[in-house]
Structures are given as C-alpha cells and as structure tokens.
C-alpha cells in the first residue's frame, strides 16, 4: 500500500527521483484530468493539458516546496494552461464547431432507465446546460466546476483558486444566474 505522503514524495522529486514523481502522477492524474475537462470541455484536450501540466511540474521540480500542498501547486499550472488554451481564438472557434461534444453526463439518466420521451427531454436539458457552462467566463466556470462536479467546499475552492471565500460565492452566484437565464431563454 502507498503510505508515503505528498510532502515526502515532493522531497524525493526535488532530487530528481522519477519514481516518486510517477507516484504523484498516479495519485493526482484523475483529479487533474477531470478539472481540466471541466475547464475546457473536451476530453482529448483535457488529457493533453493535464499531461502537459504534470510534465511542466516535473521540469520545474526544483521550485517545489514540500511544505505546500503539491496538488495546489500543480493546479496553478493546470488552470493557467487551460485558461490560455481557451483564450486562444483558433481554439475557441474550434470549440464552437465542436458544439455538443459530450463531456458531461446525466447521472440520473444513467442510474435508472426512463421512457424515451423523458430521455429526450433530459438529453435536451443536458445539451442546454453544457452549452451554458461553455459560455461562462473562465473564472466563473472554474468555480462552478469545482463546486458542482468536484464537490469541493468553499474553503477548498478558495485555497485552490487563491481568492477569498466571498469571491468564490459571488462567482458561483454569477455563474448560476447566467445558467438560469440560459435555461429560461433557451426554452
């Protein structure tokens, strides 16, 4: 069983221990991938960006601080990569063309079979929510994804994103208000 703490692994990584870094990758890759997926909305790009974040982290291993949480540090690299990716105009237009790419799944629909009418209705709702989230400003989308799909507490989100809890709540409110408008306007 893997009983080593992130801090002890980070200490080893700083000396160039690749196996220790491999353990950190295994420990955090799922979370990093899913958070990238929430931020960019494409599975291939999320995979690419999360792998790139780890690769950059390894190259910058000398700046790692064992006293700080490893994932918090990695997340800063990851979110910057994701934001820059979205900011790229060419990528944005490509994302628009890829409208409807399924990066969200309806848990309720998968849990129990429903009649075709309800399934169609839920699929349409899912499409609208996905489009609504994709249209959110980066920072609002980030907070919404961390809350809704990662189920983090406000305090945890504030630590990851590096803003006060009040800012987390106001971004979340703004994101939800936009989503509510999107659901109403599209009906």
């Amino acid at each position: 069983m893997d009983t080593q703490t992130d801090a002890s692994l980070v200490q080893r990584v700083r000396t160039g221990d690749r196996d220790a870094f491999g353990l950190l990758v295994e420990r955090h890759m799922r979370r990093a991938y899913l958070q990238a997926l929430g931020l960019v909305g494409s599975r291939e790009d999320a995979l690419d960006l999360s792998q790139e974040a780890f690769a950059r982290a390894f190259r910058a291993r000398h700046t790692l601080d064992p006293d700080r949480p490893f994932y918090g540090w990695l997340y800063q690299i990851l979110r910057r990569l994701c934001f820059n990716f979205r900011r790229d105009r060419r990528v944005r237009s490509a994302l628009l063309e890829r409208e409807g790419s399924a990066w969200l799944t309806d848990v309720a629909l998968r849990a129990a079979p429903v009649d075709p009418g309800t399934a169609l209705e839920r699929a349409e709702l899912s499409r609208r929510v996905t489009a609504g989230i994709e249209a959110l400003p980066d920072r609002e989308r980030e907070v919404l994804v961390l809350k809704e799909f990662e189920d983090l507490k406000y305090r945890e989100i504030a630590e990851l994103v590096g803003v006060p809890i009040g800012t987390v709540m106001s971004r979340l409110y703004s994101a939800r208000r936009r989503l509510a408008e999107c659901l109403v306007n599209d009906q």
Partner: protein
Amino acid sequence: MKPIPTVDLDRAHALMMGALDGECTAEERQELDSLLARHADLAAEWTRLRRVKEVTASMNLRHPSEETWDRFRLSVMHRAERGIAWTLIAAGAIVLGMWLFWEWLESFLTDAGLPLPVKLAVTGLVAGGLILLVSVIRERWFLRRRDPYSREVTR
C-alpha cells in the same frame, strides 16, 4: 404607506449560495427564509437558482476508460523528457544560427567585389529583421507581464 425595506443584495446572494450548497448555519437559513418571505423578486430568483442546482447536481463529468490511466503516467514522463530535449535543441540551434549568421555577415560586408548598393540593401534587410524581432519579443514580454492569470500562479 408602508416603506419597502431595503435589501443587501450581496448578502442575499451569499445566503442563497450557502443554502444551495449546504454551507450555511441555521441562523443564516432563517435569515434567508425571512428575506424570501418579504421579497417576491428574491423568492423568484431563489426558485430559478434551485432549479439550476437541481440540474447541475444531476450531471457529472465523463470519466475516461481505465486504459487511459495506464498510458497517462508514461505519457507524462515522455513529455517531460521531450521538453528537456527540445530546450537543449533550441538553445543549440540559436547559438549555432547566430554564429553562422555572424560569419556570413562578416564575409559579406568585407567582400570588396560586391557593389555598395547591394551591401546597403542587405544591411537594411538585416537591421529591419532585427528591429522586428526585438519588437515582437518586447510585445510578448509585455503581454506576459500583463497576463491576468500569471499573478495568480506566482506562489
């Protein structure tokens, strides 16, 4: 006429978020209920936000297949290696390119057989190219410093 009580909207929004996400105290919930009872517009917004919460709570991010994870770690290590390799290649190519360019420029300018207008034209091209290069580098550097996200990643 009874005056309409004013509402601290920021406070109301924070209470709504806390209540939706189960991160509010009993007192805060009571405060929200009292606000909703007194303000119809807030109550309507509360209904809309609850609907959004209900919908997003029923959705989740799609997980990839297990094989993806098998390749993930390997791919990260390969990328890290390739990154170091590309950095070394780029550094070597820049130094080599600059040396070759300087050698060529020196022999070109000292070539007595070439007419002066040709030398001036080439000097102009080279100088223009250098100014453009410096300008692009300066612009990139300026944009990088003003990048709103870069401040947040400094730890």
